[in-house]
């Protein structure tokens, strides 16, 4: 399957991948980020169980410096 993550397209990902598996694949620490799938927030407590679907549009954010 494919996903769009922060505007980048990722092809040939494993079907039915969980959110945790995607984070492992991207090497991102779950503790320091927040995730939106198709404009809906995915709660941190469900990362192990939520399965992603072909074509999902993901936004992964974190805090950066700002005023």
């Amino acid at each position, binding site marked *: 399957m494919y996903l769009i*993550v*922060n*505007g*980048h397209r990722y092809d040939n990902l494993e079907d039915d991948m969980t959110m945790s598996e995607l984070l492992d694949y*991207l*090497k*991102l620490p779950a503790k*320091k*980020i*927040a*995730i*939106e799938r198709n*404009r809906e*927030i995915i*709660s*941190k407590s469900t990362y192990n169980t939520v399965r992603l679907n072909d074509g999902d549009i993901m*936004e*992964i*954010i*974190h*805090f*950066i*410096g*700002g*005023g």
Partner: protein
Amino acid sequence: MKNSIKSDDTLKVGSHEFNSRLIIGTGKYTNYKQNSDALNASGAEMVTVAVRRVNVSDPNKPMLVDYIDPKKTVYLPNTAGCFTGEDAVRTLRLAKEAGGWNLVKLEVLSDPKHLYPDMEETLRSAELLIRDGFEVMVYCSDDPVFAKKLESMGCVAIMPLGAPIGSGLGIQNKVNIRLIVEQSNVPVIVDAGVGTASDAVIAMELGCDGVLMNTAIANAKDPIKMALAMKHAVIAGREAYLAGRMPTKKYADPSSPLAGLI
């Protein structure tokens, strides 16, 4: 901080309480290390932060949370870059999921030349956020009428600009800031415009409850030293305000008695 201000003189914003009345930004520093050192020097207990996409192509890039611990310093997520209420709500909901807190800084900007807040959209956004359960500290113009509307709506702090963001011009309209201070029942925090320590003192002497600054520290030649200067400035201004200044006079009044001269 504690030695200088009596400990019951705290800044209460929404459900939070702070000993320091200085809030600093985390933008424009050379790196996060310098930012963290400046924070320590400033004594601030709250920092503003922005919400942005993770760099997926470089997951090892340093992250702000590695340098400034959100468990020790309150993160105040902002809505910089949002131009509508819906964008602001979306951004801050994500921030809440990333950190788990309700206290937020709403800023809905307009023209990049002056970065003045779009007050029409700010009012609309504040309403949406408050309905969503956020405690909203709101960046606004120095207009007492808008400030009152934002307070009535339920914003937990009114944050009028002293001068355009990043300009370092100091408090341009003391009359308006004072009017806002006098009419407000929630903290008034000057946000934007401070250039150097005396500007922070002026804001505090006008009776503001706090000062929020970023560029004044980050763009100083020595940000750490300036952070320390700002810490003292905010304390000095606060104490002068609490002390109540002497009245001004047109003519001199000798400090040494004239009686008993030899």
